[in-house]
C-alpha cells in the first residue's frame, strides 16, 4: 500500500516535471504600471531581441505576491510607479543588485540605488493644478493649507502612494508636528473628501467644485490627448510648486530585478533596453513622463509647460518617512 | 405454509428516543398483514426497519432464511428484495409511467422488461397511460403506477405505508379489493400500515395492533375483534364502550346491576372495566316498577343501524364515584330526547374485563 502510493507519487511528480519544461527566451514582469503604458516598449524590445515579455499587472499587492512566492517565483523584473515600493522591495530582500555599466552610466546618480538594487526609469512631478479662472498663480505645497483656499482644494485619497510620498517629503522638510498641522489644515480646505483619481480632480475643477488640485505631471498631457478629458484639462494651468525654495516634489517610476529571477540575463537585457535612448524617447513621447536620461528630450507638449526646479531631497529619505506619513494621515483623518 | 418473515427482539432508538422495544413478529408466506396503531406508535418505523432504511439498535430480521439484520450486520436496502409503496407514492416525476415501472428492472433484458411492463400495465389498467408523465395522472392512477412499480421486480415482501390515505373515500374500497386480489394473484407477502381498522378488515389476512413501540396483539382480524387481549387493543379498535365494575370472587357489580362470573378465577377484589358492545346492552324507557332508571341520554345521532346514543350514569345513583360511566354507546330504534332517563341492562354474554392502563 505504502509502496504503491509512493510509486504513484513519483509518477505524478515526473509528469509535473516533464510538462513544465521551460521556454528559454522569455522575461517575466510583475508590473504596478498599467499594461497599455508599457506594452509599446515591450513590443519594441521583443522585436529587437527576440525575447518574449510576459506581464502580470496589479495596482496592489504585487510585492506581497512576490514575497509569498519566494524562491520559486517566476518573476524576473518588477516595475513600480513609486520610490517607496522599490525601497520596500529592497528592505524585504526581494530584489537583487544588477551590476551593469549601461544602467549606472545612463541614469543620474540620485535616481539609482547606491547598491544597484533599483533604477529609476522616469521621473514625475507632483504638480498643483489651478483653475484658469484664478489667473496665473505661484504656489507652494505649504499654501494648500492657507485659509484663503477654504473649500477650494481637491485631491485623491491621501493614502495613495503619490500623496504619501509628498507627505513624506513634507516630513523631511518640516518635521512631524508641522506636517500633521499642515495635513489638518489642508483637510479643512478640501471641497470634498478625498476621492477619485488625479484626473478626477481636474474634472472637479472643470465642474467648479474646487479651484486647486494635486496631480502628477503626465496626467495633464494624457488628458489633453483624450477627447473627453481635454475639456477638463483646458480649464486648468499646471503649476510647479516651491520653485522659489526647495523645488517641486519628485517621484520616480522604476525597475528592479527579482531576487530569484529565473531569467536574469534576459531581465538585465530588458532593464538596459528600458534606459536606452529609443525606449526613453518612447516614455517621453507616449507617456508624457520625464525620461530619467538627461540626454533624451521631453515631449514637445511637456516642454511647453516650462522647466522647473526639483526638490533635491534624496529619494530614500522619502521612502524612510513613508510609515510616519501614513500614520499622520490617519491621525489627521485625512480621508474621512 | 412456511414462515417468510421473522422479527426477533427488535429495538430501535432514534436520537436517544426509544421507538421500538423488543418486538417479535412473524409472518407466513402469502399473508397480508395490516399493522394498526395510533400515530407515533412506531408502525412506520417498523416498516422502515424491515425495508432497511433504519438501522435497528438490536434484534434480528430474517426474510426467507436470509438474515437482513442482527446487532451489527445490516444488509443494504437495495439488496433486500423488499418492495415498498410510499404514502406519497414517491413516483419519479421526471420519468414516464413506463420508465417508472422499468426502474427496478434493469437486471432484466430489454425484451423481458417490456414483457413485464406490459403485463403490469394491462393488469393495472394503465395501458393508455404508458408514456404519460406522473403529474398527468389522477391520484388513483398514481397509486396503481406505484403498485405496478413495486411489484415489477417481484419483491419477496411488499411494504405499504398508508397506501390508501390519499384516495377518495368512495374509490378506496373498490381499489383495496382490487389490489388485494392482485397481491393474492402474485402470491405476494405484504405488510401495510394504516390507522384505519376498517382498511385492515377489507385488505388483510392478519392484523397487528401496536402501541408505544410494542406489538400488543397479532392474529386474524376476526379473532382480535372477539378476543382482544388488552384494554388498549379493544379501545383502539373501538370494539365497544367501557363500564367500570367492582369485581368480587364470583360477580361483578356495576351501576347497571350485578352479573355473575362464569368462572370464579383468582381475580382479587378490584376495579375492572367491562367491554360492552352496543349489541349487548338492552335499553328500556317504560316506567314500570321493574325498570330502575339508571342512565340518561347525553348525545344523539342518526346512523344506518338506527339511533345512536351516548349514555351516562345518573348523578345521584351512587356514592362510589369510580363506578360512574359517561359514554356508553347504544343503538336503538326508540326515539329519545336529550337528558331523558332510561333503564339499561346487560345481556348475558361472554364477559371481557380489562385493567385500564394508567
Amino acid at each position, binding site marked *: 500500500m505504502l509502496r504503491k502510493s509512493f510509486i504513484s507519487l*513519483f509518477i505524478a511528480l515526473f509528469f509535473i516535471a516533464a510538462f513544465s519544461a521551460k521556454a528559454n527566451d522569455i522575461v517575466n514582469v510583475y508590473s504596478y504600471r498599467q499594461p497599455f503604458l508599457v506594452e509599446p516598449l515591450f513590443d519594441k524590445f521583443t522585436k529587437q531581441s527576440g525575447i518574449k515579455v510576459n506581464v502580470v499587472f496589479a495596482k496592489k499587492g504585487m510585492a506581497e505576491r512576490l514575497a509569498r512566492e519566494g524562491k520559486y517565483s517566476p518573476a524576473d523584473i518588477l516595475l513600480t510607479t513609486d520610490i517607496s515600493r522599490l525601497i520596500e522591495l529592497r528592505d524585504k530582500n526581494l530584489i537583487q543588485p544588477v551590476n551593469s555599466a549601461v544602467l549606472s552610466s545612463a541614469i543620474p546618480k540620485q535616481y539609482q540605488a547606491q547598491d544597484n538594487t533599483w533604477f529609476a526609469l522616469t521621473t514625475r512631478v507632483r504638480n498643483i493644478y489651478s483653475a484658469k479662472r484664478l489667473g496665473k498663480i505661484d504656489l507652494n505645497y505649504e499654501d494648500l493649507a492657507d485659509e484663503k483656499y477654504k473649500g477650494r482644494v481637491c485631491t485623491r485619497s491621501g493614502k495613495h502612494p503619490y500623496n504619501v510620498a509628498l507627505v513624506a517629503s513634507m516630513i523631511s522638510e518640516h518635521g512631524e508636528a508641522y506636517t500633521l498641522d499642515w495635513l489638518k489644515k489642508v483637510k479643512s480646505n478640501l471641497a470634498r473628501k478625498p476621492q477619485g483619481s488625479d484626473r478626477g480632480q481636474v474634472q472637479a475643477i472643470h465642474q467648479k467644485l474646487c479651484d486647486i488640485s494635486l496631480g502628477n505631471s503626465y496626467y495633464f498631457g494624457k488628458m489633453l490627448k483624450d477627447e473627453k478629458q481635454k475639456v477638463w484639462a483646458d480649464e486648468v494651468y499646471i503649476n510647479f510648486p516651491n520653485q522659489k525654495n526647495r523645488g517641486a516634489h519628485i517621484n520616480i517610476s522604476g525597475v528592479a530585478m527579482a531576487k530569484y529571477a529565473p531569467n536574469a540575463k534576459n531581465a538585465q537585457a530588458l532593464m538596459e533596453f528600458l534606459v536606452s535612448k529609443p525606449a526613453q524617447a518612447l516614455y517621453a513621447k507616449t507617456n508624457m513622463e520625464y525620461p530619467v536620461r538627461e540626454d533624451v528630450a521631453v515631449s514637445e507638449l511637456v516642454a511647453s509647460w516650462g522647466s522647473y526646479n526639483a526638490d533635491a531631497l534624496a529619494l530614500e529619505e522619502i521612502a524612510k518617512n513613508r510609515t510616519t506619513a501614513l500614520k499622520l494621515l490617519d491621525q489627521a483623518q485625512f480621508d474621512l | 405454509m412456511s414462515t417468510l418473515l421473522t422479527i426477533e427482539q427488535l429495538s430501535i432508538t432514534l436520537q436517544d428516543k426509544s421507538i421500538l422495544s423488543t418486538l417479535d413478529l412473524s409472518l407466513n408466506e402469502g399473508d397480508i398483514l395490516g399493522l394498526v396503531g395510533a400515530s407515533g406508535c412506531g408502525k412506520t418505523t417498523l416498516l422502515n426497519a424491515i425495508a432497511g432504511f433504519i438501522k435497528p439498535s438490536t434484534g434480528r430480521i430474517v426474510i426467507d432464511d436470509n438474515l437482513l439484520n442482527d446487532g451489527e450486520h445490516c444488509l443494504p436496502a437495495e439488496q433486500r428484495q423488499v418492495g415498498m409503496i410510499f404514502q406519497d407514492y414517491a413516483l419519479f416525476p421526471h420519468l414516464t409511467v413506463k420508465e417508472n415501472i422499468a426502474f427496478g428492472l434493469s437486471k432484466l433484458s430489454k425484451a423481458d422488461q417490456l414483457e413485464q411492463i406490459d403485463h403490469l400495465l394491462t393488469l393495472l389498467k394503465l395501458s393508455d397511460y404508458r408514456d404519460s408523465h406522473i403529474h398527468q395522472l389522477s391520484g388513483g392512477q398514481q397509486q396503481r403506477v406505484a403498485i405496478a412499480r413495486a411489484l415489477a421486480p417481484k419483491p419477496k415482501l411488499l411494504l405499504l405505508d398508508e397506501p390508501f390515505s390519499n384516495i377518495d373515500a368512495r374509490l378506496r374500497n373498490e381499489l383495496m379489493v382490487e389490489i388485494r386480489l392482485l397481491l393474492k394473484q402474485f402470491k405476494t407477502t405484504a405488510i401495510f400500515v394504516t390507522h384505519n381498522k376498517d382498511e385492515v378488515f377489507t385488505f388483510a389476512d392478519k392484523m397487528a395492533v401496536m402501541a408505544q413501540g410494542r406489538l400488543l396483539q397479532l392474529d386474524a382480524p376476526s379473532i382480535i375483534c372477539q378476543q382482544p387481549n388488552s384494554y388498549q387493543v379493544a379501545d383502539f379498535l373501538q370494539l365497544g364502550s367501557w363500564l367500570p365494575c367492582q369485581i368480587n370472587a364470583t360477580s361483578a357489580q356495576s351501576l347497571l346491576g350485578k352479573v355473575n362470573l362464569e368462572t370464579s378465577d383468582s381475580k382479587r377484589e378490584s376495579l375492572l372495566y367491562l367491554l360492552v358492545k352496543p349489541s349487548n346492552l338492552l335499553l328500556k324507557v317504560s316506567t314500570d316498577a321493574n325498570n330502575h332508571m339508571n342512565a340518561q341520554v347525553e348525545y344523539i345521532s342518526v346512523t344506518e343501524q338506527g339511533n345512536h346514543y351516548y349514555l351516562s350514569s345518573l348523578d345521584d345513583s351512587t356514592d362510589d364515584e369510580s363506578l360512574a360511566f359517561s359514554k356508553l354507546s347504544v343503538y336503538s330504534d326508540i326515539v329519545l330526547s336529550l337528558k331523558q332517563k332510561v333503564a339499561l341492562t346487560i345481556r348475558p354474554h361472554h364477559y371481557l374485563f380489562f385493567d385500564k392502563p394508567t
Partner: protein
Amino acid sequence: MIALYNNKIWKLVSYVTALVLIVPMLVMLLGGVSASTQLFLHLWQTVLPTYLENTLLLAFWVVLLALLFGVLSASIITQTNIVCKHQLRWLLLLPLAMPAYLVAYLYTDLFDYAGPVQRNLRTWFDWQSANEYWFFDIRTLPGAALMLALVLFPYIYMLTRGTFEQQDQNLIRASRLLGLTAKQSFFKVALPLARPAIAVSASLVLMETLADFATVQYFAVNTLTTAIYDTWLGYGDLGAANALASILMLLILFVVLAEQRSRTGLRHQSARPNLKRELIQLSFGQQILASLFCWSLVVFGFLLPIILLIIMAVQYSDITQLSALVSTGINSLKVSVFAATIAVFIALLLGLYQRLHADKYRHLPLQISGFGYAVPGTVLAMAMLSTLGPVDHWLNEAVEFLGFAAPGLMLSGSLFAVVFALVVRFSAIANGTIISGIKQIPQSLDYAPASLGVNLLGSLTKVHLPILKPTIMMAWLLVFVEAMKELPAVLLLRPFNFETLSSQVYQLISDEMLEQGALGAILIVLFGLLPIVLLNKHKEKV
C-alpha cells in the same frame, strides 16, 4: 429525517473538500492571531471607529433599501392586479447582471456637477455655480448604499417572489375567513411566512455588501475593507490585515448563523399547495404608484445604465478594440466556466452527502464550505497565496529531490489559483441553490430506488441528478455570472498576460476612462443576462 447511506469514500471526499475550501480562511485566522497589537492601537485611536461606523451604516442602509426594493416589488408582482405584471416579473431580475462598480461609475457620470442632468438643470434655471442650488451628492455613503441596493435587490426579489408564488393559498383563505382583509392577510400571513426566504436573501446582500471594495472605493467611503487594505498594502502588516479580515468574517458568520437559528422550525409545507391566488385589488391611483415603483427599479437598475453604456460604446469604440476584447472575453469565460463547474460539482457532492448520509455531522461539510463568501476578494487572494505558496514549494522541492528541474509555481502562479479563489468565494451561492433544490425532492424519493433494488450510484444517476437538472443549471449560471463580475481576487492572482473583462473594465474605470471599456462592460452585462433569461424560461415552463 432518516438518512440512508454510509458511503465511506463519499464521506472522506466530502470532508476533505470542505477542508480544502476552508483552509485559506484558517490560514487567514492563524495569521491574524499572531498580529501585533501596536498597529491596531494606532488604527483604533485614529480611523478605525469611523471605518467601523461606515461599515455598519453601509450594511444597514444597503440591506434596508434592498429589502424595501425587493420585498415591495415581489409583493406588488405576486399579490396585486397591476398591469404589465408578466413583463415586470422578469424585468425586475435584470439589475442582477450589473456589476455595482459599473453602475456607480455610470451614475456618478450622470449626476455629477458636470453630468448632463445638472448641466441641463443649470441651463434651464440659469444657475451659475454649485452654490446656487442644492443637488444630491451621489459620491457619499447613502449614494453608495443606493447603488449597491439597486443591483443587489433582485436577490431578495427573486427569493421572496418565489416563496409568495409557492405559498399555499389555503392559508390566505383561512385568514380571510377568520375576518382579515386581503391586505391584512398579506401582512399577517403571507409576509411572515416568507420570512425565511427574505432572511436568506438579505444575508446574501449583506455579505456582498461587506465584501464589496470597488464601489465603496470609487465613492470614497472608507469601510473595514479599506482598513484591511491600508494595513496590508500601506503599512505592510499582513498579520494585522488578517486579524481585521478575520474579525469581519466572524462578524458575518455570526449574523448568518444567528439568522439560521432564528428560523429553524418555521416551516409550513403542504403536499399539494393550492396556488390559486386572489389578488389584492388596487385602486387606479395605487396601481399607478405601484407600477411606477417597479418600473423605476427596472429603469434605474438596468435600462438606464445599459443605455448609457451603449451610447458610450457607439461613441468611443473602434474595431481595433474588438480583437483584444475577444481574448479577454475568452479568459473571462475560461475562469468562469471552470469556477462554475467546480463549485456546482462540490455543491452537489456536499449537498447530497448531507441529504443521503447517516452521519450526525452531515451538515458540516456543506456549511463550512460556504464560508468564503464572507471574505473580501483581495483578502481571499492574499490568503490564497499564503496557502498555495507553501504547497507549491513543497512540490518543487519534491521534484528537485527526485533530480528534475523545478517546475515553478504551478498552483499559486497559474489559473488554478484564480479558479480556486473563485470557487472558495462563490461556493456559498452554488450550495444555497443546490440545497434548496434538494429540499424540494420528497424524502420518499431517496428510499424508492433502494426499495426497487437500485443502489446509491443508480439512485444518483437515475433519480437525484435528473430531477436536479434545472437546479444544477441555475446554480451553474449564478456562479458563472458572479465569477464574470468578480474583480479583486482575479486582479491579484492573475497569471502572466492574463486580462479578464472585469479587470480591464475596472482599470479603465479607475482612470475615469470607462468609455474605452464600454464594449467589455456590455459583454459582462450580456453574460449576466443569460441565467436570468433561462431562469425565466424555465419557470414559465413549470
